[in-house]
């Protein structure tokens, strides 16, 4: 047995303590290697340009011609400038930048990207009023777009994620010009590294986007420091994450709104008086307060207040007033038929809201049944007009949210087009008068006139009860306390991670 003196023991203990302390101090140094973000959509989805796919990182890798400020205004991005040559013609001057693979960005790359999207997503042609042959490249840094009809909001529309400019010689989103370049991709995870030759500020740290489907697991991953940031934690975890000294919360009014889309062409909701009764039965403040834990803003209209042309304050309030609702039910042609309330089964809060609406409607004498539809089939079932009222959440992914009003309420909008073309009906498109208002607003270059037309549409939609507004969504970002420097945006896909500092403690 080794004989150890007291002095030796004290020395050894002291040395051990110093080594341990040094280890702790060393571990406290900031690790700027990578920011890990937990996403609720799989960033490795094969549909890399799909809304449910990589949009969470897409714009960090590729960039559109036109950017979006946090005030939802257009600003130069890959296009240094642009000008309108006449009612249908736009000229964009490109910046002198390189793709991640070292090749220079040219006007042909822009045309290729637009043609690729127009080819694969045929409906975007109608959306942008742009044909595949409506683009010219007078020189390597100039692109001229020729719209098929006047399109005042064209620069804002092409800010959409779809039109991130890609290199035709590379496949997938790894051929961008953005501040991050793709390092690894697979197994539900995408790793991005700073693009050292970026024209602006090179990002402080890399970013890893990790798919964590279950909201509770996302929340636990943050609390266990497996990730640094998560989008959309469970609503009931928000206050706990906010109060914790180790985590923080950022909420941001989003461009999306949650609403009940009422089927105007299916009995008995084809009756305007009944639709107005349903609106009188709903208490938006109660829903926000008690069901979504205050994470949202009570709505009056179908579009989020984050969108510049929304006239929330000027829209009429309905109530809640159950007595008035009952009177309207009496006045209507409603004969006791059962209304179908449809909900996406993946949206837990929507199911709870549907149960609450069902209870409110029952109180005014309207019976309903709830139908939960699997996510994959939900949108088709909605556009097939199979429900009387569908709970949906729609928002804009581009700075010009004009397309949203067209998608939702124009007869040729994607929500209504299928039934309109097949049967001359639709889902919640009130008809030709609204179509004309939308078209006028869509094409006029007079912003006041455009906003007034959109205001008329909102008032008409509200007046006729084509929707039951519920709340304007708030995006919730939960992050570890050491994380700093990210710039939020009303469009969640456009959060800026370039200036973020990770500040991780080992």
């Amino acid at each position: 047995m080794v004989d150890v003196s007291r002095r030796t023991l004290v020395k050894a203990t002291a040395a051990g303590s110093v080594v341990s302390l040094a280890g702790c101090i060393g571990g406290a140094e900031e690790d700027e290697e990578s920011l890990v973000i937990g996403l609720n959509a799989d960033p490795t989805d094969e549909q890399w340009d799909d809304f449910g796919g990589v949009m969470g990182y897409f714009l960090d890798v590729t960039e559109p011609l036109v950017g979006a400020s946090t005030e939802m205004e257009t600003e130069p991005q890959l296009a240094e400038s642009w000008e309108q040559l006449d009612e249908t013609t736009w000229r964009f001057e490109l910046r002198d930048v390189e793709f991640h693979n070292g090749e220079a960005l040219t006007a042909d790359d822009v045309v290729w990207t637009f043609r690729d999207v127009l080819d694969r997503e045929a409906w975007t042609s109608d959306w942008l009023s742009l044909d595949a042959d409506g683009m010219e490249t007078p020189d390597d840094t100039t692109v001229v777009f020729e719209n098929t009809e006047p399109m005042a909001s064209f620069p804002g529309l092409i800010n959409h994620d779809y039109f991130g400019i890609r290199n035709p010689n590379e496949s997938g989103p790894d051929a961008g010009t953005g501040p991050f370049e793709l390092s690894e991709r697979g197994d539900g995870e995408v790793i991005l590294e700073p693009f050292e030759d970026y024209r602006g500020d090179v990002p402080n740290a890399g970013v890893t986007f990790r798919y964590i489907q279950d909201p509770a697991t996302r929340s636990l991953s943050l609390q266990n420091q497996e990730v640094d940031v998560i989008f959309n934690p469970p609503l009931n975890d928000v206050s706990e994450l906010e109060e914790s000294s180790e985590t923080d919360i950022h909420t941001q009014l989003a461009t999306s709104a949650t609403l009940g889309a009422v089927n105007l062409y299916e009995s008995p909701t084809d009756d305007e008086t009944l639709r107005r009764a349903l609106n009188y039965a709903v208490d938006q403040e109660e829903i926000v307060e008690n069901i979504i834990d205050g994470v949202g803003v009570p709505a009056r209209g179908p579009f989020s207040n984050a969108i510049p042309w929304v006239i929330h304050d000027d829209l009429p309030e309905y109530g809640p007033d159950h007595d008035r609702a009952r009177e309207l039910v009496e006045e209507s042609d409603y004969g006791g038929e059962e209304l179908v309330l449809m909900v996406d089964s993946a949206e837990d809060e929507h199911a709870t809201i549907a149960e609450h609406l069902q209870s409110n409607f029952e109180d005014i004498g309207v019976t309903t049944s709830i139908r939960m539809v699997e996510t994959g089939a939900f949108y088709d079932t909605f556009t097939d007009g199979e429900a009387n009222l569908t709970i949906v959440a729609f928002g804009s992914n581009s700075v010009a949210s004009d397309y949203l009003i067209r998608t939702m309420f124009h007869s040729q909008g994607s929500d209504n087009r299928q039934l309109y073309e097949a049967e001359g009906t639709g889902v919640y498109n009130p008809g030709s008068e609204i179509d004309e208002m939308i078209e006028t607003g869509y094409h006029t270059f007079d912003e006041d006139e455009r906003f007034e037309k959109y205001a008329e549409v909102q008032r008409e939609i509200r007046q006729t009860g084509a929707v039951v507004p519920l709340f304007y969504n708030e995006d919730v970002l939960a992050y570890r306390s050491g994380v700093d420097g990210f710039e939020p945006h009303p469009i969640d896909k456009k959060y800026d991670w370039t200036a973020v500092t990770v500040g991780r403690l080992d």
Partner: protein
Amino acid sequence: MSGTNADTETEASVSTQSTWRDFLDEIRYNPLTLAGTLIVAFLFAVAIVGPVLTPYDPTSQDLANGLQPPSLAHPFGTDQLGRDMLTRIVYGARFSLGIAIAVTSIRVVLGTTVGLVAGYVGGWVDEFLMRLVDIQLAFPGLILALVIAGVLGPSLRNVMIALAIVGWATYARVVRGNVLSVKERDYVAASRLLGTPPRRITKRHLLPNAINPVIVLATLNLGTVVLATAGLSFLGLGAQPPTPEWGTMLASGRNHLRDAWWIVNIPGVAIMLTVLGFNLLGDGLRDTLDPKQQSRLEEI
């Protein structure tokens, strides 16, 4: 002939009394069977009497009173819409037990009929029916039920149809096996020679010999049907809100696992207890009704 009938009925009566006595002995000497019997009896009592006793409506909402922990007023707490959880659990027992009984009954009737016909008629009919059984058994039950319920659309009725379709084959195979072992016996052959119609032979001789394993299987099946129903409802294919079905309650409360444990744990415990009860009871019935198992126990 009338004397033969009287003898058979007397034998049947004596046999039934003996079975009951055996089962009571099983309960007396096997605490697990006793526990299973008590659990199942309690569940049936809750399902029948409970809704009369509870003061709340299972669907009436009180948002201001949401997510309240268990208290005297709400012994199982309230859910996110302020509904009394005890009331919803009690009503949920009706749905779970009702569906389990209905589905198992359909399985028993369908499977037993196919088994009797296949075993008694034999030949190509037997071949055909047994290949059908093989095909059905080749598919994993719950996955097939998921597909059927998905195609038919989400509702409790469709879940019942899906579960009934996937579960009858085991009964058919068990019954056919028993029929094959009995139908060549002398007393069945004698009965046939005396001109007794097949329907009567089936009723008097074949079915009574095949019924015991069917009862055991059915009892064990009740638990799995409760579990499968809750599973399909959890996935959104079964009961639709606001139906107080246990699986649906689990699904709607899963995001509150950390801040309101009662919303998820109480329906979970209800499902677990129900499955456990039927399994323990089924084991006890098997010990009573399965002679091979019984003789083995006696040897021990």
